[in-house]
């Protein structure tokens, strides 16, 4: 694990940003050139949403992975969070511009359709976190910064519930995501921390 952490430390953060920025662009190109199936707007929207959820879950896993497995990704945690926000923004943008398109319908959807209301709420919660994801804000806000960034728990939970609500019938995949989120919450509880000794 030590060697693994040592090699991880050698990866520059900017490389993570560069690589992380690619998937939405590649998928956009694939969608535009007919490589995402016959309903490319929906395919792009779903791929981005799922990637956003995966990135948020990875971000949430950084601390437990360090404490339980000794795997240190702390250096990349901010990049993971910022990329997750970027994916959520792309997901939202595809929904607005390529899927729903019609402004009156967009607003009606946000108000009337619970899974969209919940998804939007999750995005809004991420906004202050994205704005304060710089060193200056961390210094400036001090203790408040840590408190503020606990909003991420609510945002991830809303994201997972948003996915669960939008599928039709009883489906396994969104339950797996929600389960992962809940596990990552549970290991942070004082009881679990005592039991797992970290």
């Amino acid at each position, binding site marked *: 694990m030590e060697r693994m952490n040592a090699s991880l430390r050698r990866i520059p953060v900017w490389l993570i940003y560069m690589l992380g920025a690619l998937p939405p662009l590649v998928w*956009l190109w694939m*969608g*535009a050139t*007919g490589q*995402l*199936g*016959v*309903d*490319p*707007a*929906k395919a*792009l929207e779903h791929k981005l949403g799922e990637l956003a959820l995966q990135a948020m879950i990875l971000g949430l896993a950084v601390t437990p992975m360090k404490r339980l497995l000794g795997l240190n990704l702390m250096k990349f945690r901010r990049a993971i969070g910022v990329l997750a926000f970027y994916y959520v923004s792309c997901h939202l943008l595809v929904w607005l511009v*390529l*899927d*729903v*398109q*019609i402004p009156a*319908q967009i607003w*009606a*959807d946000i108000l*009337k*359709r*619970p*899974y969209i209301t919940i998804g939007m709420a999750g995005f809004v919660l991420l906004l202050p976190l994205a704005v304060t994801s710089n060193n200056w804000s961390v210094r400036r806000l001090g203790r408040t910064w840590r408190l503020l960034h606990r909003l991420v728990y609510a945002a991830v939970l809303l994201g997972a519930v948003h996915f669960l609500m*939008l*599928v*039709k*019938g*009883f*489906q*396994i995949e969104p339950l797996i995501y929600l389960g992962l989120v809940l596990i990552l919450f549970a290991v942070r509880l004082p009881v679990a921390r005592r039991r797992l000794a970290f």
Partner: protein
Amino acid sequence: MAHRWSNDLTPADVTPRGAWMNRRQLMAGMTGAGLVALAGGARAETLEPNTWEEITSYNNFYEFGTGKDDPAAYAHLLKTEPWSVKIDGMVDRPGDYDFQDILSEMTIEERIYRFRCVEAWSMVIPWNGFELADLLAMAGVQEGAKYVAFETLYRPEEMPGTRYPVLEWPYREGLRLDEAMHPLTLMATGLYGKPLPNQNGAPLRLVVPWKYGFKSIKSIVRITLTDKEPPTSWNMAIPNEYGFYSNVNPEVNHPRWSQASERRIGGGLFAKRQPTLMFNGYEKEVADLYEGMDLEKYF
């Protein structure tokens, strides 16, 4: 039948546009919807039937999985020969009807219909098939029958999607008898003049073009005439979202998807959404079936 349905979407819609385009634009303008009039050119284009590839690669057939590409990937496991349809309930001649025997009695015709999914996407599909009314006449509908219930095959070893309780299997659908007898209501057996691919509901499926796609039940093995409204799968699963009638209606709100407009499959990534038409564009033909009914209540 007193009056047989004739298409307003014809193979001419597939041929190079030109003169057709102007006529379509004019018709689009006459519908009075401002959006349609503005997007006149786009509308003319979208009346072309979808390609074989589109119709057979993007399907909802949860018995083979919930992904849109699952049916195309797994439906080959389904054995459609031999196939028989049990017709029972309030009929004069109940029994197991062999699919080939049914075919030999029926005249197959082409019907180009709009197809609108409740998920707010749509296609234009050139079906081959016969009127359900003709099949019901074969079995002899008894006096007092008011509804028709349908069941999809449930054969877990050939249907990997049924391993999960996505819905209560087998899939069930139903129509009121007058809807079932309507000349637009089709039993489809083919696409583009070829036998129906398994992912599209081989060998025999219902097509009710003025209702959301999930009403058009696939791979039918049982048809029951009854005097009570039969239970239907999506209504059983989520009754506040899926009603028994499920007529395409841009004005009736749905908790999950706005039904006011739709994405026509085949337009690519930047395709414009189109307004959804009342009864999916078949208002003239079917509105009288629902005269005096509150369509908000009977959604």
